[in-house]
């Protein structure tokens, strides 16, 4: 573990920022979900969200979503200053209702996927992705 002063400061600030951000970010994520669902009920399950438990690199975290019968899937990084990541839309001829991307995470947080189904219902899945300094396993 060696940290330049710049890294030390950056990480220190990041840690400090993390203690402040979640509340604001969570509110922003809730707002984004409300805007997507129009306030409708969201069921747990029916969406598969694949993300690593611990990010190998917080700057580029691979995530995949799939939901059978989805017309649209929104991905949120609930703890990022700007939680919105992407919304994937699927037309009626889409071969599979799945998508993969990479996202940047400011720190340990929940990644959330909300799917809008063909019948107008909504489904949700979330997964905690840990962003860690690491370095001491053995």
């Amino acid at each position: 573990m060696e940290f330049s002063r710049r890294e030390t400061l950056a990480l220190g600030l990041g840690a400090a920022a993390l203690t402040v951000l979640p509340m604001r970010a969570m509110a922003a994520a809730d707002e984004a979900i409300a805007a997507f669902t129009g306030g409708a009920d969201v069921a747990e399950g029916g969406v598969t969200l694949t993300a690593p438990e611990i990010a190998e690199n917080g700057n580029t975290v691979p995530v995949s979503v799939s939901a059978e019968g989805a017309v649209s899937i929104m991905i949120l990084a609930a703890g990022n200053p700007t939680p919105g990541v992407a919304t994937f839309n699927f037309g009626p001829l889409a071969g599979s209702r799945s998508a993969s991307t990479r996202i940047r995470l400011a720190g340990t947080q929940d990644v959330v996927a909300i799917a809008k189904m063909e019948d107008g219902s909504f489904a949700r899945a979330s997964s905690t992705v840990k962003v860690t300094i690491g370095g001491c396993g053995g």
Partner: protein
Amino acid sequence: MISRRDFLQVGMAASALVGASGFGNWGRLAAQQALTQDQLLDFDTYGNVSLIHVTDIHAQLKPIYFREPEINIGVGAAKGQMPHVTGADFRRAYGIEDGSPSHYALTYNDFTALAGTYGRVGGMDRVATVINQIRAARPDALLLDGGDTWHGSYTCHHTEGQDMVNVMNALKPDAMTFHWEFTLGSERVNEIVEGLPFAALGQNIFDAEWDEPAELFKPYKMFERGGVKIAVIGQAFPYMPIANPGWMFPEYSFGIRDAHMQSMVDEVRAAGAELVVCLSHNGFDVDKKMAGKVTGIDVILSGHTHDALPEPVLVGETIIIASGSNGKFVSRVDLDVRDGRMMGFKHKLIPIFSDVIEPDKEVAALIDAQRAPYADQLSEVIGQTDSLLYRRGNFNGSWDDLICDALLSEREADIAMSPGVRWGPSILPGQDITREDIWNVTSMSYGKAYRSEMTGEFIHVILEDVADNLFNTDPYYQQGGDMVRIGGMGYRIDISKKQGERISEMTLLKTGELIDPAKTYQVAGWASVNEGTEGPQIWDVVESHIRKQGTVSVAPNNSVTVVGA
């Protein structure tokens, strides 16, 4: 008609009986001072398949002493469960007599005295004898290596793993999975793996760029043994680029990937596998959780967390086997597989008492040949110790206390940090410390000892981060090492709290003052995962320190207060 469940239960009972009676016998034999190789290896061959498991050898070719941990706290569902039971409680749980060979092999108490009685453990030439004997009873037994094999000694470092490859090839394993091997760098790992005469497995070894299974490492291999179709699925250490320097193997990505594991199990079952074995470097608690999520695995051969358990742990219909570390144990698992299913099992954790088990002559000569070019370097005496030097334990070990002392004095630092790794043999009081001994607890490809300025706040962030890797109640968020060892600073840890709230009362020991979050401290440490780390190699730092001391003495370490366990 006896159901499969009954068979499993009978299997369990039989295993427990073998375990219990075996241990009782050893206890009596100890009283008679008549432990023999035949008794250690005694095993009535059972069923139609035998598995031999070795793991986490960490390049220990020669017999060593290895003290098991006193502190190994489990959290969440693992609290108070195996393998998080130590000392007398562990002995009571398995009916092990005090003072018996099993007491010495499996628990920490009275280690120095019992080491005097029972001697060193391990040695790959003794392991070879055990493997040969099992193969004499079951010629087509599968030998499976759980990884952390090509790392951990002077000769392994200088030959970039070639000494271990040569010796392991002589044992003829059938498959292997990986962890520290990758710290040789991907180029060297690829070079060795391309030439391996056995399967290199890891269903979770992926290409980092495309997030697809890596070409060089296969997810599984099918075998046919005893008329049974067996699939061995590999599971490499999931958190390599986080716990170890990812820049050394940037082409690879890992992770637990249990959904992919399930698809591999389904694939091998569809291909006719009657027995599914997972050769894992997940660590024990991660394996327990995975066994509850992934269906269809019969046996998990568990590595990484260095636990040695004399009986399997059962999760649903999956048995999990823990085979220790540093060449100290070999597990034998006999299975009865009929009608496409595992009907029962018999298991023995065989401790490798090096004075009892005859070395295999060919392998002994091969080991000596690997070491011969370095004999003078290896055997040079650097100093002596008055204290028992060991590493295992969640918060500290006397070897790490000594390493931290070396960092504090040689690098003129306020605070020292030493990684919470679990490899490294023990040294008895009164023993010489050779260069080989120092390398056995320090050798690695990123061993430079840095010296850096850190604020009190940042030191707190580091401790909280590492503590969560150990005490997060969800095993999938654990990395399997121990707490970073700290020299020059004490702290209080409440393991029941969440990340950010566990560590308090950080105190600079030399002044007795609380650490000031805003103040900057000089911190020396080693094993940084960051590229471009500068400083002398840690083994040189430790050697210089021990030379100056002549005879080292390590005082009991009371600087960490643990609550919430």
